[in-house]
């Protein structure tokens, strides 16, 4: 099976994986062949990984079907792994510009909303303040965009995962928005 890999830093890699159960693999990356080995130690996320003769204590957590959190030597990587079929199916979808949503990452109280619908925001610009765990936390825009709707108002309690704001990509970049 061929996988298309993408890390959160934007690095991309294609790998051809042949699995020799239970735990042995042959990998082909960039024209190189690697022997590899991945053993599930405790069925709770601890893995023993070997690539050629290099050893790794890996911790793996699955976020969804395609996204994995892989931790090696204290460094944490979010990896998207898409297989050939998914890649083919998703190719079309990913070219469409997508609206982004700003969700509460924890339950809390909205203290302040600093933007209004229609307002253009830059990456890192404060959008609102959420009070939780005894701290006031500023929620900022991750990318440039335009505020499409504001779903909360000051004093309102929000649950984890609740949508607080929606952002559209900036008008000019919409057709070429990164997926």
């Amino acid at each position: 099976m061929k996988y298309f890999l993408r890390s959160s830093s934007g690095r991309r890699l294609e790998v051809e994986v042949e699995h020799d159960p239970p735990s042995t693999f042959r990998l082909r990356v960039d024209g190189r062949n690697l022997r590899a080995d991945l053993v599930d130690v405790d069925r709770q996320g601890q893995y023993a990984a070997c690539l050629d003769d290099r050893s790794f204590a890996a911790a793996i957590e699955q976020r969804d079907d395609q996204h994995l959190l892989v931790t090696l030597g204290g460094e944490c990587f979010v990896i998207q792994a898409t297989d050939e079929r998914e890649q083919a199916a998703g190719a079309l979808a990913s070219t469409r510009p997508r609206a982004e949503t700003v969700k509460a990452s924890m339950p809390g109280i909205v203290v302040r909303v600093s933007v209004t619908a229609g307002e253009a925001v830059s990456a890192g610009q404060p959008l609102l303040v959420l009070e939780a765990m005894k701290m006031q936390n500023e929620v900022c825009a991750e990318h440039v965009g335009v505020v499409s709707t504001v779903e909360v108002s000051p004093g309102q309690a929000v649950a984890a995962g609740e949508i607080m704001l929606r952002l559209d990509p900036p008008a000019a970049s919409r057709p070429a928005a990164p997926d």
Partner: protein
Amino acid sequence: MAPIRKLLIANRGEIALRIQRTCREMGIETVAVYSSADREALHVRFASESYLLGDPAPADSYLRGDRIIEIAQQCGADAIHPGFGFLAENPEFVAAVAAAGLVFVGPPAGAMAIMGDKLASRQAMVAAGVPVVPGSTEAAADAATAQAAAEGIGYPVMLKASAGGGGKGIRVVREAAEMDGAFTTASGEAQRAFGDGRMYLEKFLEQPRHIEVQVLGDRHGNLIALGERECSIQRRHQKLIEEAPAVGIPADTRERMYAAAVDAARAVDYFSAGTVEFLYVDGEFYFLEMNTRLQVEHPVTEEVFAVDLVEQMIRVAGGEELRLAAGMQPRGHSIEVRLNAEDPQKDFMPSLGTIHNLRLPGGPGVRVDSAVYQGMEVTPYYDSMLAKLIVHGSNREQARRRMMRVLKELHVGGVATSAGLALTVLQTEAFREGRYDTGFLERFQKNGETPARDVPDDLEEIAMLVAAMHRTHRGVVRVERSDAGDGLAPWVQVHRRNLLGGRTSR
């Protein structure tokens, strides 16, 4: 006073467990209190007795001083240890504990009241000859008053909650135009956190270091300084990495700082453990505040002095004389990293979830003060600190490298933590050389400086390949490792068959 035989610990999490551990070593029975969010917590499980306080919100549970005192009386506890946070620096609670005929394991209410009032403590320190940061001598209830005071001191100034502590209700104001907004936010935060919105001002010192001195006293007038801690790696006045001793402080300055700390404590008739915080700039130090309680970072002092500070607090509370002599020398170097459930990539937003896939570090020179367990819910109700990682080395460089090793052994699944940031900071040249101040972390994060890290260049690529393999063999391995037979792995079963004279397939 009689020795303490049964102690109620009015706290939760890591510090409640840490206090219990000392009690169990001293043969003291422990009484835990808990909110409904903490039924499964380790501090409840390992207590001798435990009592439900109420709903999760602190106001309904860990801040219910009345209920806590009632429980202590009913269960026959003879003392209460408040830990840190919650009721630890509330002089009314201390008075109520005494009024109920119980011993408070901490300083006297009077000392706490003075040190809890930032202005009163400044005045007391000036009177005692302890150097303080230049600033206002009266509280400001509104922005206009604050602005007037700031003109006298000269910008930039620090706006601080009179009743504050722990970094809440603090703002830097660099020019007059910022005062209005800063006052409103900070005062509001202070009002919510401490029930008192009044503020005072101090000259903002550029690039100070945060150095604090541990003091320890008894009810008989003995009072000693037990070395210092360097706590300048902080963000929003929340410490992330602490160490003992501090780097590069001349011996005579150090001695003067110890003497000032003891003077500060003596000025308020202090006993028990306490911390005198100083700002250190250009070889000079200024009294910042005194924390009239056990400090989060107390373990680094314990490591270099081989002293159990909680034990000392309990003995002193029971009326014993301090047996430690002044002038004890630290041995080696200790570093602590606070493991918080928060996401440094998202401006330190608290990270909630269920802890799983937990791997704690171990080995030489490593101490883990933790309340984390597999299956623990990280809830929004409390402070985000999950654990403290503490190392001791025969010198600072060994301690630093040991902590790096520890942070690589550690894994916490289910929430984001501060571990990765701490690991990065430890690898900067500034930290390695001990050249840093309280602005370090902010500058570091703003400038995106990338330290020379000792990881393989292709680690990200390896992680990507591991992800691909994981997607491929998910499920397969689980089937292979089924618990058929007696639960031994396939290779053991194969070998056993060989041993027993069966097939020799390998």
